[in-house]
């Protein structure tokens, strides 16, 4: 298979004189037996759905438990005053991550990337650039191919499900995909993309999956923010020429290893972490009462 390691992608880029995104697209063409046009069309549809997931956000919606909703709107209103600490781009990143994460919890349409729980990370970093005219659709589509290739490698070598590897496997992977996408979008070469991916994963290593009452709500929505902001900083570091001392494939393997060793309480079972706090327990009891 073509996407078994980042190293393999690097070699292909070198050997076939193709950019990162094209290596991923060619894999898709081969794997699904489709034309380049069909592959691109599907990626366009995916991007369109991602954009829609941002544009259709409504702050008055609430999740089934009632714990989630309205924070995207709160952040947007605060950002509009022009007083945020983080500045124009990052405030949009935070707002977007919240909006999409909340929409997911409220049963709206999203793009799982790589999972539904982590669906806010990629749109959070890409949509603000697109909306501000700092990236056009062609560039975004290429960046999405890069992100998908990164996700495929992580999925093959480690894992992307909270039940297998904790939050580091979901938000961590989403963050790595987003960091790689941003690096590619800003003209970083394959090596820089690799360093961005490695740094993003390292920074979130060990993060547990501890959803309150087992729902994709708390702390999942705000973890999308941390995944997105981490991606931006790692991309900027990589573009500055800062490197990960540990090679990227070793970081990915390590994430998988750490995930496998996480106690089962910290892998989406809602038996540990925040889910086990008195607050978490009380939400669980409330939900059980609703179950008639």
């Amino acid at each position: 298979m073509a996407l078994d390691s980042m190293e393999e992608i690097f070699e292909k880029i070198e050997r076939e004189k193709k950019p990162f995104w094209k290596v991923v697209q060619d894999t898709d063409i081969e794997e699904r037996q489709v034309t380049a046009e069909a592959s691109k069309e599907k990626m366009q549809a995916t991007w369109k759905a991602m954009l829609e997931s941002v544009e259709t956000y409504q702050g008055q919606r609430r999740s089934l438990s009632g714990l989630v909703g309205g924070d995207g709107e709160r952040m947007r209103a605060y950002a509009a005053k022009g007083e945020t600490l983080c500045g124009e781009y990052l405030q949009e990143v935070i707002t977007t991550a919240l909006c999409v994460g909340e929409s997911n919890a409220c049963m709206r349409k999203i793009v799982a990337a790589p999972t539904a729980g982590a669906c806010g990370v990629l749109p959070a970093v890409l949509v603000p650039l697109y909306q501000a005219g700092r990236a056009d659709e062609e560039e975004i589509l290429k960046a999405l191919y890069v992100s998908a290739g990164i996700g495929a490698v992580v999925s093959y070598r480690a894992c992307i499900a909270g039940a297998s590897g904790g939050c580091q496997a979901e938000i961590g992977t989403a963050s790595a995909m987003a960091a790689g996408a941003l690096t590619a979008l800003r003209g970083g070469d394959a090596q820089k993309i690799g360093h961005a991916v490695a740094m993003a994963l390292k920074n979130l290593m060990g993060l547990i999956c501890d959803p309150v009452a087992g729902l994709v709500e708390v702390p999942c929505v705000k973890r999308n923010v941390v995944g997105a902001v981490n991606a931006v900083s790692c991309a900027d570091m990589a573009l500055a020429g800062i490197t990960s001392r540990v090679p990227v494939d070793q970081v990915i393997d390590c994430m998988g290893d750490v995930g496998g060793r996480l106690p089962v309480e910290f892998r989406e079972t809602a038996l540990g972490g925040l889910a086990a706090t008195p607050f978490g327990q009380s939400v669980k009891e409330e939900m059980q009462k609703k179950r008639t």
Partner: protein
Amino acid sequence: MLDIFDILGPVMVGPSSSHTAGAVRIGRMARTLLGKPPVKAEIGLYGSFAETGQGHGTDRALVAGLLGLRPDNLDIPRSFDLAAERGLSFSFYTARLREAHPNTAVLTVEDADGGKLVMQAASTGGGRIRVDKLNGVDVSFTGGFNTLIIRHLDIEGEVAEVTRELSNAKINIANMNLCRSRRGGDALMVIETDQRVPPVVRILIKELKDIRDITYYEKEGD
């Protein structure tokens, strides 16, 4: 390996690929295998589906699937109302199973003409599913391929007859499994194919000797 649109996708209604998107697909699979719109469904939830299913909309997602909705349909949250409009009655219970995947549902569905199907399926992650039992017979297929489910008499040469028709139509078999309840009795052939199986080929297979019935699931389109 996963295709890249399993990584960047599916496009789906939230909140959980396993508990929502997968549940819709399980419902749709039961509807397809029944062959007609169901009018009655008893839905058993097991493991995590029973524990956290309500908060994830698993119940609404399963009913949405039974109504033929896809995982990205925004009507999923109001599927209970849709079911009332379209004449599908349903009930839920907590299923007791041995050694099943933690995200499992058992659906007993009936159509208006009395046709009935019992299907046990699991949501295995990322919106992917696996059918584990059909009318009491162990099976294993995912809906990730075009799938033929053929009930036939357990006699020699039956597999060759069926696969010849596929071969003539230039349809490649990706996976295949075969099981029977007892020697010489009913047997079930599950064939997953790379290409679509056109109606004419399905009719040719159905007209073969000793084929009881044939059901076809076409892979979800792009």
